[in-house]
C-alpha cells in the first residue's frame, strides 16, 4: 500500500520531461535579450545586403554585381593588395611574436607577469592613438626620417607612409598582441618534463627546441596566425590613415562604395565575399585546432 502512494507521488517521465523543457525555455529567455541586438543589427541587415547584392537595379534577381566585379580589372588589384598586406603582416607577427612569447614563457612567472604588461598595454590603447603615433614616426618630416638624416645615413627622406610599407608597419604593431596572447597561453601550458626528458636523453638545446618544443606550440601559433590574418582581411582604420588613400583594401572599397555612390549592391557583393573568406579561414583553424586536441 505504501509503495502505491509513493508511485502516485512520483512524477511520470512525461511530467519530468515537461518540467525540464519548461525550465529550458526559462533559461533561453535569459539569453534572448542579448541576442536581440545581434539579430536586429547584424543578421537582419546582412540578409538584406546579401539580397541587394544578388538583385539588379530593377529589383530582379541577377548576378550583375558579381559579374561587374569580376570584369573590373581594379577588383583583382584590390584582392591582391588585401591578401598581400594581410599575409606580410601575419608573417611579421609570427617572426616578432614567437620570440617574445617564448621569452615570456621561459621567464620566472613573476618577471613574466611584469613583461606581459608590454603586450597588454598596447592591447588596451586605442587603435587611433597607435596609428597616430606611427604617423608621427613615419611622416616625411617625422621622427624616424629626421633621425636618419641627422645621423647622415640618408640624404633624402624615405617614403615610409602613404604607401604599403607604412600600412604594414602600423598593422603589425596593432595585430602583434592578438598573436602573442594565445601563443603565450599555449606555451605556458606545455609540460617542461618533455624538455627535460629530451635533454636527459642527450639532445642539444637546439634539437630539443625544434624536435620537442616547437611542434607542441604549433596549435597555438596556427590559431593565433589565423586570427590575425582574418582581422587583417577586414581591417579599415590603419590602412585608411597610414595608406593615405593610396592603399586600397577590400574594406576601404566597401566604405567608398556606400558613402560616395550609395552602391549597396556592389558593397554587399564585396562584403559577402569577404565574409565567406574570413569564415573559411576561421573554420579551417577551428577544425585543425579540434583535431589536434587529444
Amino acid at each position: 500500500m505504501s509503495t502505491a502512494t509513493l508511485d502516485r507521488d512520483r512524477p511520470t517521465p512525461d511530467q519530468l520531461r515537461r518540467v525540464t523543457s519548461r525550465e529550458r525555455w526559462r533559461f533561453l529567455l535569459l539569453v534572448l535579450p542579448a541576442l536581440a541586438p545581434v539579430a536586429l543589427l547584424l543578421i537582419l541587415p546582412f540578409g538584406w545586403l546579401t539580397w541587394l547584392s544578388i538583385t539588379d537595379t530593377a529589383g530582379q534577381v541577377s548576378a550583375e554585381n558579381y559579374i561587374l566585379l569580376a570584369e573590373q580589372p581594379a577588383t583583382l588589384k584590390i584582392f591582391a593588395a588585401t591578401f598581400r598586406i594581410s599575409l606580410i603582416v601575419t608573417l611579421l607577427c609570427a617572426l616578432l611574436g614567437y620570440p617574445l612569447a617564448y621569452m615570456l614563457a621561459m621567464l620566472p612567472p613573476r618577471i613574466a607577469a611584469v613583461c606581459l604588461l608590454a603586450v597588454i598595454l598596447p592591447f588596451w590603447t586605442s587603435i587611433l592613438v597607435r596609428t597616430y603615433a606611427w604617423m608621427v614616426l613615419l611622416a616625411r618630416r617625422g621622427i624616424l626620417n629626421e633621425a636618419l638624416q641627422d645621423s647622415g645615413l640618408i640624404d633624402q627622406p624615405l617614403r615610409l607612409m602613404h604607401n604599403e610599407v607604412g600600412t604594414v608597419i602600423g598593422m603589425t604593431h596593432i595585430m602583434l598582441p592578438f598573436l602573442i596572447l594565445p601563443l603565450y597561453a599555449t606555451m605556458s601550458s606545455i609540460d617542461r618534463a618533455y624538455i627535460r626528458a629530451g635533454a636527459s636523453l642527450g639532445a642539444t638545446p637546439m634539437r630539443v627546441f625544434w624536435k620537442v618544443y616547437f611542434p607542441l606550440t604549433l596549435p597555438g601559433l596556427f590559431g593565433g596566425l589565423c586570427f590575425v590574418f582574418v582581422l587583417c582581411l577586414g581591417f579599415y582604420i590603419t590602412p585608411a590613415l597610414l595608406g593615405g588613400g593610396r592603399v586600397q583594401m577590400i574594406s576601404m572599397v566597401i566604405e567608398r562604395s556606400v558613402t560616395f555612390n550609395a552602391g549597396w549592391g556592389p558593397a554587399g557583393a564585396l562584403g559577402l565575399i569577404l565574409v565567406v573568406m574570413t569564415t573559411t579561414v576561421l573554420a579551417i583553424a577551428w577544425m585543425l585546432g579540434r583535431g589536434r586536441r587529444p
Partner: protein
Amino acid sequence: MYEDHVRPRQRIPLYILGGIIMLLLIVPSMIVVPMSFSGSDFLEFPPREWSLRWYSTYFHSGTWLDATAISLTAAIFTALFATILGTLAAYGLRLLGRGLSPLLLAALTMPLTVPVILIAIGIFYVYARIGLVNTMTGLVLAHTMMAIPFVVVVVFSRLQSFDLNQVRVAESLGSNPARSFILIVLPQLRFSIISGALLAFLTSFDEVIIALFISGGSQSTLTRVMFTNLRDQVDPTIAAVASMLNVISVLLVVVFQMIEARDRRALSKSTS
C-alpha cells in the same frame, strides 16, 4: 622547477631580442606624450620649448569637448546595458548546459568574428530606414551589440567553475530563481562582471568604424573627430588628446590587473 638544461647565460640573445620587441610594442604610443607638451605651432620631438598650449586648446574647443562628452555618455550607457544583458545571457548559457549553449555562444560572439566594416554598413542601412542615424539611442544600441560578447565571454568563463548545486540547494530550501541569482550567483561573479563592464566601456569608447557611419554633426564621437582629423588635416591638439587617452589606458590596465588578482585570491580562498 625552472632549472633547465639551458644556462641563463645562453638565453641572453633571446632576452635582448625579446626586450627590443617589447620596446617596439610600447614606445610608439608613448612618444606622443612628450610631443604634446610642445610650445611651437607644429609638433616636434623632442620639443624645443615646453608648454600646455595644446591641452589648453583642447579644453577651450567646443568640438573636442562635445565629442568627448558624446563618447563618454555612449560608453557609460553601453557598459550598463551590455553588462546587464551579457551577464544574464552568460548565466542562461551556463544553465542550459552542453546542448544549445555552443550554438548560442557562437551567435552572441558573431560581432567579434564578422569584419567590422560590414557590421557598420549593415547598421547604417537599417538606421537610415528607421531614422536612428546621428542619434545617441542608435549609437548606444550598436555599441551594446559590439560589447555584449566581451561581457559574455568573461562572465561565462568564470561561471564554468561555478557549482550549480549551490542554486539547487537554495531553491530546495524555498528560494526563487531571481533571489538565488542575486544572493548566491552575483556576489561570486562580481570581479568578472566589473572586468566585463570595463571591457564594454572601452569597446564603445574606442570604437571608430561604426561611429564613422552612424554618428555625425552634434552627435560625433571623439573617435570620429580624431579619425577625420588624422585623415584630412592633422591638428596638433590631437597629440594632447592621444596623450590623455594613453594615460587612461594605463590606468585601466592597472585597475584590470588589480581586479584579476583579487578574483584569483577570492577563488583560491573559496576552493581551499
